[in-house]
Structure formats: structure tokens, C-alpha cells
């Protein structure tokens, strides 16, 4: 009896597909192709979204929502822009929507996520502890900013993206990004003074 296992060859063929071919498939409604793309872009989306979420479960939900937004928006994607840029634009704007819609709730929550503290694998690592403390302070300062200012500071100063890239991701003008960043940094410095945290 003849038996031919097609599934053995399928991964080899699919792994040879270029990203643009995966994108075309996903845009045509191929869920498998989208899951493949989502798995490869998830770490980048996770890294950006982690600056806005306050706990790991919240971050997982946010990343999930962003992936669903990408899936819904894929039929409208035009290949004149790089796919990665389009993905990050959708992700950044989704994070902005998240910040705006959760602002009231965030104000009433505690600052430090307990899960983040527990995640400290090596308490003796002074450098990591110093970084985490710096992040907690920066997060405290960011909480004082409105959603737009927070987004600009996160993209420029924490993700080290340029003004032009930040403007492209947010859809705001470069002048607007620069002015917002300048004002936001001033607010952060003022708040640092109020807290007495500067040396």
C-alpha cells in the first residue's frame, strides 16, 4: 500500500517563503501565515509594549490586542512601505490608544508591579538592580505625563528611535515630536526636583 506523507515536506517548502510571500498569504486571510508572522514580530512588539503595561498579564493582553489589530488591518496593508514599519506603526498607535483608555485606572493603581520584583532572578546582580530601580523611577515620572508625551519619551529616549522615525510611527510632525519631547523632559526634570531624587 502506497503511503505518501505530505506533511513531512510542507515545513521545508514554507520555510523557503520570503517574508513578503507570508504577508501576501496573511493579507489574503491565511491564518497559518499570520501566526507565522506574529511569532516572528512578537518579541519586537513585546519590547515596545512592555514600556506601557504595568504587569505581565496586562502586557500579554496588550500584545494580544495588538496582534489582533494587525490581523484586522492586514487587508489594508499596501506593500509600498516595509512590513516591519507598518507593524510597528500599528503597534505604537495601539499602545497610544491603550495609554489613553487606561489613564484613569492607571492613576489609582500602585506603581510597582509585584511580579516585576519577583522576576528578579539574581538579587545579587547590582547592575540589574540599579537598572530596575532606574526604570521604576522613570516609570514614576512617565506616569505624570499625558499619553502623547509619554509615547514620545518612550520612543525617543527608551527605544532610542530618531525624531523622524518617531514622527512616522506616531503620525505627528517632526516639529511636534521635538516640542513634545522638550516639554515632556522639562516636566520630568521638574518632577524629579519635587521628589528630591536628583543628587
Amino acid at each position, binding site marked *: 500500500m502506497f503511503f505518501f506523507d505530505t506533511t513531512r515536506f510542507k515545513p521545508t517548502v514554507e520555510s523557503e517563503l520570503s517574508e513578503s510571500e507570508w504577508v501576501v498569504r496573511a493579507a489574503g486571510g491565511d*491564518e497559518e501565515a*499570520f*501566526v507565522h508572522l*506574529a*511569532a516572528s514580530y*512578537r*518579541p519586537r512588539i*513585546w*519590547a515596545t509594549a*512592555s*514600556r506601557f*503595561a504595568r504587569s*505581565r498579564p496586562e*502586557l*500579554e493582553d496588550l*500584545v*494580544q490586542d495588538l*496582534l*489582533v489589530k494587525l*490581523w*484586522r*488591518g492586514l*487587508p*489594508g496593508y499596501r506593500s509600498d512601505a516595509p512590513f516591519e514599519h507598518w507593524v510597528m506603526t500599528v503597534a505604537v498607535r495601539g499602545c497610544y490608544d491603550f495609554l489613553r483608555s487606561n489613564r484613569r485606572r492607571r492613576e489609582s493603581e500602585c506603581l510597582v*508591579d509585584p*511580579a*516585576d520584583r519577583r*522576576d528578579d532572578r539574581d538579587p545579587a546582580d547590582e547592575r*540589574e538592580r*540599579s*537598572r*530596575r*530601580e*532606574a*526604570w521604576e*523611577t*522613570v*516609570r514614576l*515620572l512617565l506616569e505624570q505625563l499625558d499619553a502623547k508625551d509619554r509615547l514620545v519619551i518612550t520612543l525617543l*529616549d*527608551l*527605544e*532610542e528611535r530618531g525624531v523622524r522615525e518617531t514622527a512616522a510611527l506616531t503620525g505627528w510632525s517632526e516639529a511636534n515630536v521635538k516640542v513634545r519631547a522638550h516639554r515632556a*523632559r522639562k516636566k*520630568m*526634570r521638574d518632577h*524629579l*526636583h519635587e521628589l528630591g*531624587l*536628583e*543628587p
Partner: protein
Amino acid sequence: MKHEDLSSLDRLLAEARRHRPFGEPSSFGFETRLRAALATAAPSFAECLASLSWRFSATVFPVILAAFLFLAMRHHDDLPEGVGGLVSQWAGLLPLPI
């Protein structure tokens, strides 16, 4: 004084930049959760409207305008006068004993 403030903020931002708040994403259950979310992710009416490009709107608007003008010219003798006439004409189309 200002320089000190700026440098302390810069130092904080530089340290914070290197911290990964929640580590790396776990792949456990990722596909299952994503597939479940995609299965229920039907676009809403507002999202369907938002997905229409400005080119589509720019194409459709003159067509709708032309259709409106055509119908208006064709029925210009039948058109009601004033708001009262318009309301009574539309009310006549309703299946209600008004």
C-alpha cells in the same frame, strides 16, 4: 543647576533603557491564545468604514453626488416644498396610520 538636572535625567533614562521590565515573552500557549482571539476577531462596522481608503471615498463621493443630482432633477416637479412637505412626504411612506 540645569545641567545637573539634565544629566541626572539622562542617566536615569540610560539605565532604564537597558532594563527589560517583564523579560522575554513566553511561547507557552501563544499560538492557542492567538488562534482563539483571531477566531472571534470579526471587524466592527466602524472598523470596516475606517478601512476604506481616502481614494475610495474620493471616487465614491462624486458618484453619489451625481446620483443625487440626477434623482433631484428627475423628480424636481414632485419635490415637496419646505420642511413640512418633506416630513409629510416621508411620513406617507411609513406603514403607520398617520
